């Protein structure tokens, strides 16, 4: 019996091993020197005109004042409209406003004329009063983005009043209805980037009567003026938007958009290959294979407005990297010259990121395309280490690099640790859950930490002021505790200037000064990569578009071409 069992066991073991190996096997065809993968992917368009998108998670909130994540933003931006929006070159353009606002000479007063005849999807025409109401809601205690209206005259007081009373905010003096379609916004003082806030979905117009009718549940039953209308939402499973035939820019060419929540990337990929999705966000392992396959035309990639960095806490007691001494600055420069960003971006992260050349990524106004990416120069790094008083790294204390558990953070950190070790810079690694990580960086606990930044709007101020202005030190965003009065002054001056070229010139100067101080290990800029079926037309993403979400894509123009390829 034992002989029989052992023979059968061996057979079964082989069966198990084969079954485990099988899914990893891919048919391959040889083409010259390159190995090209043969991928079976159905590319026949559906006849019902529904555009199908996979999501990793259920969108938490669709009420504009609650939207704070990219998934909700992607869905909400199809249901709602704002006063302004972006053109394909990321320049602001009017959306629900007839034209760009008239701005007073002192830069504090913005006069808008609202488009006539635009209707909410339940039928009522929008008025300036709706915008006043919608902007004021951002001051309420439930709002997740009250800071967007803080520059408005009287907004801070309204926010404070709402917080102390735990009730609705009182009227904000700086938002005035001048007529049915005339809206005036007055700021406390000139703040040029404010205009970008009016293109963010949080400031979208909502119908007061439905918000009051549904209360908190408005987030589950959103109604706006957008190109699509929420038809059905089965939480955690699917969300169906149907085309709004009365959309003010013309009826969408799609019949609808169907989101399906599939948390497992491999399952998403199988559904995409089976022709059950029009798009899919590329995950680990997919990009290298698909870009060298018979389906390479389905890979779409574009630079996103994101930066990944490792920050030094410049006020951390006992850290050799802290402070503005020459030695500390040289150490930080040495770290910047020791890391092989090309390897990180192209090999480790499979081309989904690329080497940073500063703070502002391509696509942000003021990005300096002429500045080369940080080189790998270990010799120079060793020399700087010696100049800083640590020849060969001797005597240099090890600090921990803190990072959170998400995504590729751990493997990037391991690679950076190894690069630094080669030069003689010792670091340890400390991985935390996101909540614990945020709490520790707010408190200034780590000496060296990993963070990233995704643009809210394509203006350099969104990066430089939030991340480097001394007034934002600590939990307000400047977790490197960078403090440079010259940089502060340049940023502050940029607020008062409405001439865009002049503003950008000032902010570029600010960026250069920050780069000279090396408060970060400037690491990588991001790239969005998706798979998209060849029969999809007019899906034109910009840097503000978060993978398949299609934020700021002109969805009413997107269409499914009837002539597909099999």
């Amino acid at each position: 019996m034992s002989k029989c069992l052992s023979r059968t066991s061996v057979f079964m073991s082989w069966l198990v091993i084969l079954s485990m190996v099988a899914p990893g096997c891919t048919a391959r065809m040889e083409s010259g020197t390159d190995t090209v993968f043969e991928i079976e992917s159905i590319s026949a368009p559906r006849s019902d005109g529904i555009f199908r998108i996979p999501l990793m998670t259920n969108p938490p909130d669709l009420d504009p004042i609650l939207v704070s994540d990219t998934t909700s933003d992607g869905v909400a931006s199809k249901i709602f409209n704002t006063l302004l929006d972006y053109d394909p070159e990321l320049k602001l353009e009017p959306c629900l406003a007839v034209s760009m606002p008239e701005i007073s000479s002192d830069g504090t007063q913005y006069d808008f004329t609202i488009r006539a005849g635009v209707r909410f999807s339940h039928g009522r025409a929008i008025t300036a009063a709706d915008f006043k109401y919608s902007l004021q809601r951002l001051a309420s205690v439930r709002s997740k983005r009250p800071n967007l209206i803080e520059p408005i005259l009287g907004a801070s007081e309204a926010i404070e009043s709402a917080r102390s009373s735990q009730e609705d905010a009182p009227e904000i003096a700086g938002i005035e209805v001048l007529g049915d379609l005339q809206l005036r916004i007055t700021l406390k003082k000139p703040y040029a980037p404010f205009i970008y806030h009016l293109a963010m979905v949080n400031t979208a117009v909502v119908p007061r009567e439905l918000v009051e009718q549904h209360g908190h549940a408005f987030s589950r039953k959103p109604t706006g003026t957008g190109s699509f209308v929420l038809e059905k939402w089965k939480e955690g499973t699917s969300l169906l938007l149907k085309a709004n035939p009365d959309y003010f820019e013309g009826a969408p060419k799609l019949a609808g958009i169907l989101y399906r929540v599939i948390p497992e990337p491999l399952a998403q990929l199988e559904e995409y290959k089976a022709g059950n999705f029009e798009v899919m966000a590329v995950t680990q392992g997919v990009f290298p294979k698909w870009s060298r396959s018979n389906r390479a035309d389905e890979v779409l990639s574009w630079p996103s407005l994101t930066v990944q960095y490792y920050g030094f806490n410049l006020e951390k007691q006992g850290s050799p990297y802290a402070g503005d001494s020459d030695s500390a600055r040289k150490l930080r420069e040495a770290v910047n010259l020791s890391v092989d960003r090309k390897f990180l971006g192209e090999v480790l992260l499979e081309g989904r990121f690329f080497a940073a050349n500063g703070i502002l990524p391509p696509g942000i106004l003021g990005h300096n395309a002429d500045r080369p990416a940080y080189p790998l120069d270990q010799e120079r790094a060793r020399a700087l280490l010696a100049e800083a008083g640590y020849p060969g790294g001797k005597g240099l204390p090890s600090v921990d690099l803190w990072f959170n558990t998400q995504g590729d953070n751990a493997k990037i950190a391991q690679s950076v640790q190894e690069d630094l070790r080669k030069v003689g810079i010792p670091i340890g690694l400390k991985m935390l859950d996101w909540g614990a990580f945020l709490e520790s960086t707010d408190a200034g606990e780590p000496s060296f930490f990993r963070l990233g930044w995704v643009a809210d709007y394509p203006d350099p101020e969104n990066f430089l002021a939030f991340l480097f202005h001394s007034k934002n030190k600590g939990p307000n965003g400047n977790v490197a505790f960078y403090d440079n009065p010259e940089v502060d002054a340049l940023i502050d001056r940029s607020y008062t200037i409405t001439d865009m070229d002049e503003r950008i010139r000032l902010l570029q100067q600010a960026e250069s000064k920050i780069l000279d101080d090396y408060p970060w290990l400037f690491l990588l800029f991001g790239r969005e990569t998706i798979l998209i079926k060849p029969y999809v037309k007019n899906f034109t993403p910009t840097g503000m578009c978060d993978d398949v979400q299609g934020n700021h894509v002109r969805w009413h123009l997107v269409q499914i071409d009837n002539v597909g390829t099999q």
Partner: protein
Amino acid sequence: MVSYTLRRLLEAIPVILLVTLIVFLLNAAIPGNPGRIRLGQRADPASVDAYNEARGYNDPLPVQYGRYLWRLFTDFDLGESDVKAGKSVNEILEEAFGVTIRLAIFSMFIALVVGIGAGILSAVRSRTWIDYCSMLVAIMGVSMPVFWLGILMIIYVAPVLGLPRTGFDDTDAYTMFRSLILPAAALGLLSSATIARLCRSAMLDVLTQDYIRTARSKGLGEAVVVLKHALKNAAIPIVTVVGNSFGYLLVGAVLTETVFALPGLGREVVEAIKQRDRELITGGILLMSFVFVGVNLLVDLSYAWFDPRVRDDRN
């Protein structure tokens, strides 16, 4: 029997209270500020504080706990989700449990049919190729991780059978049945492996007993001997395992629900933990405790049905 059941139900109350207390303490012990996590990097400290104040997270823990218990016992109100604004925890759990319970029943059905069938067959045809094959398949079943089996099914089985690869569709009974076949099979086959092995050994024990020989000598058919006389007496260990498995299935098969994109209880609670949705975590775990207490009670009661001696002891 009635008093036994009542006593067990009363015993469940302190268990549930203890669970709520432990979950509350754990929620408080996890590092991370709930307001900060919900509002993200862009929020200023005043907004974070206002969020926590509005949600009552700034109150002392005993106050929060007392408020929670009061709501629970007066209205059976589990609160509002932190993450899904405007949605009550009761509603979320009701929807998620609805999916999980269907999946659990379907997969348990598969597990019982396959597991008990294979177990009986192995015991009756002990030490034949049927026995070896079914036990090796059972070993394979208990060894294979469910997410792996699930992915294999999505890649290879779904296209062949024309079944949906992922998702849950309860538009009508037929589409729901189709959307649950693969996940239920993946889960059920794994449970069936354990049941088959246990059923085989229990049946082998029983089949050698004197009363089985007596039954056979009375001229009863083999099917009656095995299914009526042997199986019922071999049932107690099987019921214990089935009860436990069913309990685990009811509290959510996280991996299966993730791979097959089913919005069930397990996935919902894991997501809540990831996003620190305190109300949903507490409500979810509370529901899980109820389910476990209930399933264990049912298992205990079923012992009495299978074995009258147990009933006599309790009386």
